[in-house]
């Protein structure tokens, strides 16, 4: 079974803090993704990576950065957390295939910025 794990289920941080959200997958997938989920807005893509040290901006990258030093790990970084970054953050991974393959999701991290 594919397993995607995220470092925390719940996180509370103060405004201005640097925040690291970690995601690890154990199926040797090339692609990894970070989304945020907000009520009424669905899932919005923040960043994705299709290889080690590669990253691409998604639809809402502002205020975020990412790091992918190893294939299995994809980190989302909030350089200076703000209250509007309070959200549910979901990590996903997928293999590169001849056709588009489904994404496998982690359990999510609910981040509250106070």
């Amino acid at each position, binding site marked *: 079974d594919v397993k995607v794990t995220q470092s925390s*289920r719940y996180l509370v941080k103060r405004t201005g803090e640097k925040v690291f959200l970690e995601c690890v997958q154990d199926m040797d997938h090339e692609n990894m993704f970070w989304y945020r989920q907000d009520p*009424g807005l*669905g899932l919005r893509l923040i960043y*994705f990576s299709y290889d080690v040290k590669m990253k691409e901006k998604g639809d809402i990258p502002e205020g975020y950065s990412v790091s992918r030093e190893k294939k299995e790990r994809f980190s989302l970084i909030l350089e200076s957390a703000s209250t509007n970054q309070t959200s549910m953050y979901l990590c996903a991974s997928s293999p590169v295939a001849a*056709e588009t393959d*489904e994404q496998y999701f982690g*359990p999510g991290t*609910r981040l509250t910025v106070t």
Partner: protein
Amino acid sequence: AQKVTQAQTEISVVEKEDVTLDCVYETRDTTYYLFWYKQPPSGELVFLIRRNSFDEQNEISGRYSWNFQKSTSSFNFTITASQVVDSAVYFCALSETVNRDDKIIFGKGTRLHILP
């Protein structure tokens, strides 16, 4: 530009009733993939089905069935004889094959309540 619309924000039905979740998509690509995901209260999205644009055959899996109609750009999901465990948020999603990155565009989701 690709877009996925789930017009139903929230639906409530009584257990054992059938319920259909609507999904309408927009894409300029001729080859694309459609997905449905379920997000139970635990939070983790669970993959349900993938359909490619060349396969319009309807699919049935137990109490779940999917109706794909290219003519109306719809990919609707029906749960027959609903159960309380079906309560979740359901997302329809679309992926085009033009780019290598396999990005998926999600709809805003439909929250389904199955009442005992």
